[in-house]
């Protein structure tokens, strides 16, 4: 039976583990890292967003930390192998260590249990022309503003909105992953989107896209 030593083996062979890096080596490695790894930042960011269920702040942290770790361990990366999966592994491990403290998704007392489409919906009574104006103003908003609105949601709502709309998971899948009842998922999605809608209408209004029918 043979034991594969993997990169340690070859790293020692090539003297990477024993030789001290000279300043020039370090500079060359930094350039190499920037050229090879940095273009993968968008890919890693979307992976991080999935891991953190749409938590932009955590996703940014996660990507940054991944790249710092990768940079520090750059001498361990074997040129010619798949850099994307090397980075993805670091990302996954970083995520597990940093965020996945197996914390249960804590329900905010009572709030979730209300199924508010059953409580009557004053907002649904808005006139058709208001809605059409709203659709128009929505189109005029930039991704940056939508992003800002998403960031403004509380994490419980944002997770569900992200999982349902961006990842396109079913209610059942979301309920399973978050370990909450399906009714809670539905309620959070509904409330999250209602909140988003309100925020986006505010953005649109402040940008001067007047939503018809609203009195100022």
């Amino acid at each position, binding site marked *: 039976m043979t034991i594969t030593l993997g990169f340690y083996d070859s790293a020692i062979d090539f003297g990477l583990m024993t030789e001290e890096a000279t300043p020039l080596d370090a500079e060359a490695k930094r350039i190499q890292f920037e050229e090879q790894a940095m273009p993968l*930042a968008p890919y890693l960011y979307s992976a991080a967003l999935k891991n953190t269920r749409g938590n932009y702040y955590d996703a940014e942290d996660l990507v*940054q930390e991944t790249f710092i770790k990768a940079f520090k361990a750059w001498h361990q990366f074997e040129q010619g192998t798949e850099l994307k999966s090397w980075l993805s592994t670091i990302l996954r491990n970083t995520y597990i260590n940093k965020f996945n403290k197996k914390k249960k998704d804590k329900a905010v007392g009572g709030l979730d249990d209300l199924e508010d489409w059953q409580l009557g919906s004053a907002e649904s009574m808005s006139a058709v022309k208001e*809605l059409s104006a709203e659709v128009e103003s929505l189109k005029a908003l930039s991704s940056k503003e939508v992003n800002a609105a998403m960031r403004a949601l509380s994490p419980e709502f944002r997770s569900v909105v992200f999982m349902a709309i961006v990842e396109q998971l079913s209610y059942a899948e979301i309920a399973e992953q978050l370990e909450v009842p399906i009714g809670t998922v539905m309620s959070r999605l509904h409330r999250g989107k209602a909140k988003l809608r309100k925020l986006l209408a505010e953005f649109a209004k402040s940008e001067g896209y007047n939503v018809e029918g609203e009195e100022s």
Partner: protein
Amino acid sequence: MTEKVMNCEETKRHVHEYLQKELSEAELESITTHIANCDHCEWEYDFEAALNRTIQMSCTETPAEEIAEKILERIRSIDLNDIQH
């Protein structure tokens, strides 16, 4: 299952499943019939679809440049000579 046309409340409640194509055929038919006869719900559905697309777009467009800049800044402050011993 009894076939019935959903009312506005029920229709509104199913918008997500409708957009995600998670409905049974009976439900789908019931909703389609309702939407065909109700301008308000039709607009609601259009709006929801537009909102979903907007959210999707905003999340797939990454603020990659900003993040990359922050990373580069941090990387450039790291001295590899301190690490690879």
